[in-house]
C-alpha cells in the first residue's frame, strides 16, 4: 500500500523545475483562429486589450521534465488515466511577454471505490511574467490504480 502521508511530505509544494517561454504575436493569433474565437481581445492586435486566449497557457510546459520530478517514485500499476486539466487566469498574457513556468506537485491523495483504490497526483505549473506577476495556474490531474 502506498504511504500517502509520506509521499505528500516528500513531494507536495516543492518547486522542481523551471522553464521560460516568450509569447509570439502570430502564435497567439493562430491559436485563437484555430479555436474559432473571433473575440477581438484575442484576434485583433490593434485592440487595446489584445492578449493571449485564456486557454493558450494550458499548452505550455507539457513536458515530462516539467510534469514530474526526475526521482519521483513509480507508483501504482498499469497506465495512468487523464484526470483532467484546469486553467486559472490571474492576469493578461500579451505578445512579447517572457513567462516563467514553475513546476510543483500540488497534491497527492487517494480515493477508494468499486474498482479499488486510485491515487490522484495533481501536477501544477505556476506561470509568472517578466515582472514576477502571477498570470496563470495550470493543474493536470493524473490517476493511477494502486494496491489496496
Amino acid at each position: 500500500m502506498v504511504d500517502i502521508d509520506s509521499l505528500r511530505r516528500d513531494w507536495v509544494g516543492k518547486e522542481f523545475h523551471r522553464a521560460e517561454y516568450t509569447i509570439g504575436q502570430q502564435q497567439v493569433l493562430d491559436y485563437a483562429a484555430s479555436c474559432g474565437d473571433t473575440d477581438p481581445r484575442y484576434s485583433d492586435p490593434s485592440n487595446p486589450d489584445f492578449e493571449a486566449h485564456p486557454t493558450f497557457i494550458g499548452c505550455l510546459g507539457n513536458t515530462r521534465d516539467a510534469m514530474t520530478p526526475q526521482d519521483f517514485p513509480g507508483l501504482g500499476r498499469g497506465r495512468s488515466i487523464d484526470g483532467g486539466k484546469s486553467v486559472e487566469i490571474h492576469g493578461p498574457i500579451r505578445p512579447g511577454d517572457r513567462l516563467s513556468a514553475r513546476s510543483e506537485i500540488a497534491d497527492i491523495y487517494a480515493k477508494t471505490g468499486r474498482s479499488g483504490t486510485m491515487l490522484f497526483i495533481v501536477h501544477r505549473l505556476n506561470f509568472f511574467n517578466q515582472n514576477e506577476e502571477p498570470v496563470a495556474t495550470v493543474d493536470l490531474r493524473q490517476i493511477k490504480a494502486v494496491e489496496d
Partner: protein
Amino acid sequence: MRFSDVELGDDLPETHPDISMERVKLFVKSAYMDFPRFTDHEFAKAEGLPGAIVPGVMSQGFLAAMIHQWAPGAKIHKLDTVFRTTMVVDTSATCRGAVTDLNEESHLVEVDLTMLNHEGVTSVIGTATVELAD
C-alpha cells in the same frame, strides 16, 4: 450579455466547432503540440486510435470560444475540464453550456460545459467561472 440578463439554468447557444485537419494543424503549431497522432490519420490508426484525434486542450479552446460568443467581453477566470473519450479529426462536434450558479456580489457565473463527438457521445465535461459585465 450582461450579468443582469442571465438566469440560473440558462442554456448557452450551442456551437459546432470546426475540427477539420486544417484547423487542427493550425492549432498544434501554435500550441507546441505538433505530433502525428493529431495530424495523421494513418499514423493514429497504427497506434490503435480511430483516426487522428483532436487535442484535449483544443477542446478547452472551443468551449471558451462558445462562452465568448454567448457573452462578448466576458472574462474567464477558470476553466476545468475532463477528457472522457476521443474526438476524431475531420468529423463534427457540438459544444453546450448551461448556467449553474450566479454570484450577485462578484458577478461571477458558473457554467457547466459539455462537448459531444459526432456520435453524440460526451467527449469532454467541465465547468467555467466567468465574470460578466455589469
